């Protein structure tokens, strides 16, 4: 393969405490630590492994959003990605608009594979990869737990997917969209020398206008609320009481 594009999303760090905004319009992001979406990190790692196996020549990290997204592109480049593309926008990002932007970038870059995390841990949409494949009319393999690329001119990938009943293996023609699941790999640490090298790698900056994409939101967030607080449990005194409660209170029997 000549090139793999990897989409990386800036999200609230998985360790940070999530606070809902007072007006219920979303979650608080000011002064909250932001990081690369963990599934995107897995996608970067997988692309780098393919490159290290000489199955790909170049890995390009793509991110969309405000200027700060360049941090996540830098992280990807510190891990080993060769260069970055940043589409600068302060508009709210929704899966369809993101997929359209990524499709336009794919047209410009003609990658052999577009890798994405299967979903982002902020909105948990799990739609972008699928929409991207549809827009490009490329085959897609989602929830990948193993990715292999066949050597030779055939240009095919073999992807194992985690599905409800077990594992499904697909063989698909390239170029293709692959979205990564949790057990695909364990991402590497960025080494200190590579962090330094990442400084010198280029990030191309674009705007949605450059790509001719209409970013207008199609979805409207009605309100965001905290999950219900867990109530304390009770200790039952006998099996009979337990069965009674399961049958008459919880109504699960």
């Amino acid at each position: 393969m000549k090139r793999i594009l990897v989409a990386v999303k800036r999200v609230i760090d998985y360790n940070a405490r999530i606070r809902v905004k007072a007006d219920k319009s979303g979650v608080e992001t000011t002064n909250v630590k932001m990081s690369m979406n963990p599934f995107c990190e897995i996608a970067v790692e997988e692309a780098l492994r393919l490159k290290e196996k000489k199955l790909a020549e170049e890995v390009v990290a793509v991110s969309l959003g405000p200027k700060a997204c360049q941090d996540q592109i830098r992280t990807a480049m510190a891990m080993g990605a060769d260069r970055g593309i940043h589409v600068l926008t302060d508009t709210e990002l929704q899966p369809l608009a993101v997929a359209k932007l990524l499709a336009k970038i794919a047209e410009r870059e003609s990658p052999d594979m577009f890798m994405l995390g299967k979903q982002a841990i902020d909105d948990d949409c799990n739609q972008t990869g699928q929409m991207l494949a549809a827009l490009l009319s490329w085959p897609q393999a989602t929830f990948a737990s193993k990715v292999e690329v066949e050597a030779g001119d055939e240009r095919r990938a073999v992807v194992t997917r985690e599905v409800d009943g077990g594992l499904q293996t697909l063989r698909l023609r390239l170029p293709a969209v692959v979205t990564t699941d949790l057990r695909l790999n364990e991402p590497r640490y960025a080494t200190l020398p590579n962090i330094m090298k990442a400084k010198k790698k280029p990030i191309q900056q674009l705007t949605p206008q450059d790509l001719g994409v209409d970013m207008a939101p199609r979805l409207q967030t009605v309100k965001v609320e905290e999950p219900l607080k867990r109530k304390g449990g009770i200790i039952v005194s006998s099996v009979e009481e337990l069965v009674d409660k399961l049958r008459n209170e919880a109504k699960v029997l």
Partner: protein
Amino acid sequence: MLHRSLISGVRRQLPKARGFASTYRAAQSFQVDNSLTEEQLEFQRTAREFAAKELLPHAAKWDAEKHFPVDTLRKAAELGFASIYISDDVGGTGLMRSDAAIIFEALAYGDISTTAYLTIHNMVSGCIDRYGTDAQRQGFLPQLISLQSFSSYCLTEPGSGSDAASLSTTAKRDGSDYILTGSKAFISGGGVADLYLVMARTGAPGPKGISAFLVEKGTPGLSFGKQEAKMGWNAQPTCSVSLDGVRVPQENRLGEEGQGFTIAMNALDGGRINIGTCSVGGAAFCLDRALQYASERRQFGQPISQFQAIQFKLADMATAVHASRLMVRRAAESLDGGAESATMDAAMAKRFATDACFTVADDAVQVLGGYGYLKEYGVERVMRDLRVHRILEGTNQIMNVIISRELSKQQR
């Protein structure tokens, strides 16, 4: 359901928390530090992740079993942590002291003892990089950078501690070699390390008569005492080193004859900043643990964090950590910039940070009460580890001597 399994899946990859802290999250790790450069934030990110995954989960075990985690240290070396300020022409990371101050703090948050050894190793390698001949740099540094070879710094002697310039180990010329005789005490990495940077007397009494030598393990006449039983710093070995007619070729003398004390003292300027940094990391850990405990522990019908006595203690602790961090980083910047005040800044930072951060650890034990005294909660280990920082790399009383001397220089 799908969502829950995903998140719990992501969290499975996170370090396992212990004891009461089953919901433990590294409060430190989501603070936003606006004073750092973009690269420094990345260094910090890597160091924090490494500390959270590779150090913190094992720190208690290493302490209890007195285990020196060679494999973990080599993993750290792969990321560049064993060669932070070694030039890149020999494969070093080529960063500055101010970067090191951020990295070592993040690592010490996970384990002080291991990180402190790493700082000593960086210090010895730094001496070779700075004062070594090309042959010495090419010969020794690649193995030190990858930690295929571990190093030790040998200045202190049984009879020469604070008065380091009075050391009595001798190095007598014999043709193109030197014959080293004497003994060294409290040597971190002793017995395990492959390379020893030994200060020995080649000339007259006093600082000007001292030279530095690189002594390789296995050299006839080099032997080690029993491993010392210590209060803390248990994840690294410490022992005495005996030199009984150890023949060292002239090529292994580091720097000029008589330059040894200067090399030793310059190294210690950086070493003191590093030790201060390790104190900050340990204290930051204690602060996080205390904050969390205070918000979870209920007495008299409310979380103890609602009591002003606890609030003020936590406020004092947070202030001490912050002040220590600023002093240490400032001293590192002074050293990077070759400021005239670098020695004094390092001495002040070392004295202040090691004292203040020890008090933070002690306070954390107090906030956690009986639980703080149990090993399971981790803060007593930090307290034991931090205690020695007030003694080594020059006691804090010697720091006052240095500060006073520098002050009087300014008066002249």
